């Protein structure tokens, strides 16, 4: 007998608890919006503009010493943070607008080596400088691309599921917006930098969210075509239970891989791995507790309207 994590005859009443979970999700989403508007994402240089320079020292040093050594360069406010593990002696130096961005790497290396002398050499590993205009363009382009892609996915899903209900497209899009908000809120709280790699991870979350919603909705579509008399609510519950084993397995394996990425992927990949980790959890959750209820609420509204029309 092969392994079986979820008993085949499982029957959890998912849909019956929808009011509670929709209310909970709405609260979490509102909190995420408040966080985004008040605290805001910790934009990396990709989107905020400015420079970030990654430095490796031969021997340990402190952020204060680095700041002191760079004071003469006139870089304005400098933020210095540790990068990676302590033993690597790596630091990220970040500052806002600089003039003459071409030569910043050598200027910093020169200033540090003047201050520290030959006993503790500094090596510039990475320089990223993004002009304010480019940062703004990247933000606008990225947002536009995601928005248009979302609309097209919604239209495609609505069309493919139209036989059961036009609202599946809306359900998938609302679930997707829910997931983006939850992940953004988690990013605000974690203070991970939001840069292009994080954006790519967010795009991946969007892809996964829609994929997961389609898988669950597909089973609803199939069951609804077979059992025309059964109320939609119980069809949904049945479909969600039938796909539960697959849902747990797929998101479980994905989360396992992400744990590997979080642990071994190094500091550059960590924000992306975190984004994906939160995104897979919320993406799986929203297919069940957001996308399906949206369809139910919509259908109930239609039925009431239909009944009103018949009564008139």
């Amino acid at each position, binding site marked *: 007998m092969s392994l079986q994590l979820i008993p085949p005859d499982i029957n959890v009443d998912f849909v019956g608890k929808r009011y509670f979970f929709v209310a909970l999700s709405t609260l979490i989403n509102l909190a995420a919006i408040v966080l985004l508007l008040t605290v805001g994402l910790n934009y990396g240089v990709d989107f905020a503009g400015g420079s970030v320079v990654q430095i490796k020292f031969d021997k340990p040093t402190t952020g204060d010493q680095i700041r002191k050594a760079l004071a003469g360069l006139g870089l304005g406010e400098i933020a210095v943070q540790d990068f990676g593990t302590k033993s690597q002696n790596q630091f990220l130096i970040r500052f806002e607008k600089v003039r003459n961005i071409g030569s910043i790497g050598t200027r910093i290396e020169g200033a540090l080596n003047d201050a520290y002398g030959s006993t503790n050499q500094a090596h510039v590993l*990475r320089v990223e400088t993004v002009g304010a205009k480019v940062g703004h363009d990247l933000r606008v382009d990225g947002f536009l691309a995601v928005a248009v892609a979302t609309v097209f996915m919604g239209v*495609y899903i609505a069309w493919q599921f139209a036989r059961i209900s036009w609202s599946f497209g809306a359900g998938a899009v609302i679930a997707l917006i829910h997931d983006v908000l939850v992940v953004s809120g988690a990013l605000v709280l974690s203070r991970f930098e939001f840069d292009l790699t994080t954006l790519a991870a967010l795009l991946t979350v969007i892809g996964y969210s829609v994929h997961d919603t389609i*898988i669950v909705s597909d089973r609803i579509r199939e069951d609804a075509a077979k059992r025309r008399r059964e109320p939609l609510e119980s069809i949904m519950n049945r479909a969600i239970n039938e796909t539960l084993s697959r849902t747990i397995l797929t998101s479980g394996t994905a989360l396992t891989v992400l744990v590997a*990425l979080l642990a071994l992927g190094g500091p550059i990949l960590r924000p*992306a791995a975190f984004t994906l980790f939160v995104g897979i959890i919320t993406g799986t959750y929203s297919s069940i507790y957001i996308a399906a209820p949206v369809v139910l609420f919509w259908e109930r509204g239609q039925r009431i309207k239909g009944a009103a029309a018949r009564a008139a």
Partner: protein
Amino acid sequence: MEGATQNPITIVTLLALAGVFLWLHFTGGSGKLRLWLAGALVVAALVLLLPSLQLNLPGWLQPLNSLPKIQLGLDLQGGTHLLLEVKLEDAVKTSLRRRGDDIQREAKDNKLTPPQISQNADGSLLIKLVRPAEASAFQDLMSRAFSDLTLAPAPNQPGAYVAKFTPPEAAQVRSNAMDQALETIRNRIDQLGVRETTVAREGDNDILVQLPGIQDPERAKELIGKTAVLQFKLLDDKHSVSDALRQGPPPGDEILYGPPQAGGPTPYLVESPVLMTGDVVTDARVREGGRIEGPYVEVRLNRRGTEIFAALTSQNVGRNLAIVLDNTVYSAPVIKEPIPGGDVQITGNFSFEEAHNLAIVLRSGSLPAPVEIIEERTVGPSLGRDSIRQGELSFVVGAIAVLAFMAIYYNGAGLLADFGLILNILLLICVMAALQATLTLPGIAGIVLTLGMSVDANVLVNERMREELRAGKSPREAVKIGYERAWSAIRDSNISTFVAGLILFQFGTGPVKGFAVTLCVGVLTGVFSCFVATRAWYDWKISVRRLSTISV
């Protein structure tokens, strides 16, 4: 990617094998044949990927090295990425100023008094007629000889006109300037001797420069940024520099400075007219020079340049000729005698490297407008290697975990799914190499998503087969229903992902594009490997009537 070999073999081989496979799949062809084809695809993919592994291939395999390799993005292999903005409005202004000189010359040739011409802040020309009586003759001349300019009476200034380019002409000037800037920067980059560089136009007025694996990014930036406008002007020997510094330069003169040095740069009072520009330079070389003057640059002029230079030196013997590069006076030697030969020496206390850079920019021509670096990303080669190593490690650990889990949980069907996954990864990388697409960190995110989706495709099919077996269906029916019922979900999910990929590619920039490419390719190879190819195994088993049990 420039310089990379375009080799159609990879893509043709893969498409042919996959095409036959799909045809057999949909026409219900032999499962056995399809299994062989799947094996052939694995072998083909492995062979095509050999060059990307950069092993030392034995002699008889050397021809394989001409196959396309995977291109790693700068975030993975290290290098410099620059986005340059070309100040095109400056090119339009420069061009208008030249037209202003043309107007004066043309007026003189037509027996009119040359008008006074100055340039407004927005670049348009303010033309003041010296004799108002010539107004109609001047307007006539303008409409006849300068149809690329629009002429309007200047507000509140009788007898004065404002001239600027017609919109199509201005667009033409911008487009020419952009082409020239691209060409010039490409020439300069070529002289750096870095392999597989990219110099490409991006948007309306930006240029993207990518220098993989470059050791000295500072030098590249210095070379790219130099406008390198070379001009020859005469020093004014009638007025003193110190008076001009105090009271402003006399009309027709300007103050320019020498290169930075201790105690401040030397000021020079030069006459504004440009006697000759750098566009007549055909070659520039570094010469050793003596101990005192140091290395200098010897510039060779073309025939027209030689003539102009001979004339200007013979007319101005005894005066100082200022050699001005990007508005800096490098030297102002006395013209001792007419120089008919066409060789000019530019001295100026250069270090050898400065002289070398100067020679490069003079050879590659001047930029039509200044450029500004608006984005820079430099990743040291060691850091790029670190990201690859850490990424690889976590990828391998994650992949092994997934493969092992599938095999344990689904037994035989799990092993089949593992085969599908491995085929998927191989094909994906192969197609990426064949398309010469660049693999970046966001691209890897796209790969991870499509891999997740193809694992899910197998989970869907296998769960469905278990379900049908539990409901008492025969293994044969369970396979058929499992694949059929899973298809609608897999189709819809993959199509919507593919559509999203296309849109992200269309609207997104750089990294978002990289994500979109791997997403689209991964969807295609994923559906093929994990859905179409694994089905062949069951069809073969059914065809030999051995499918009494399935291990799922």
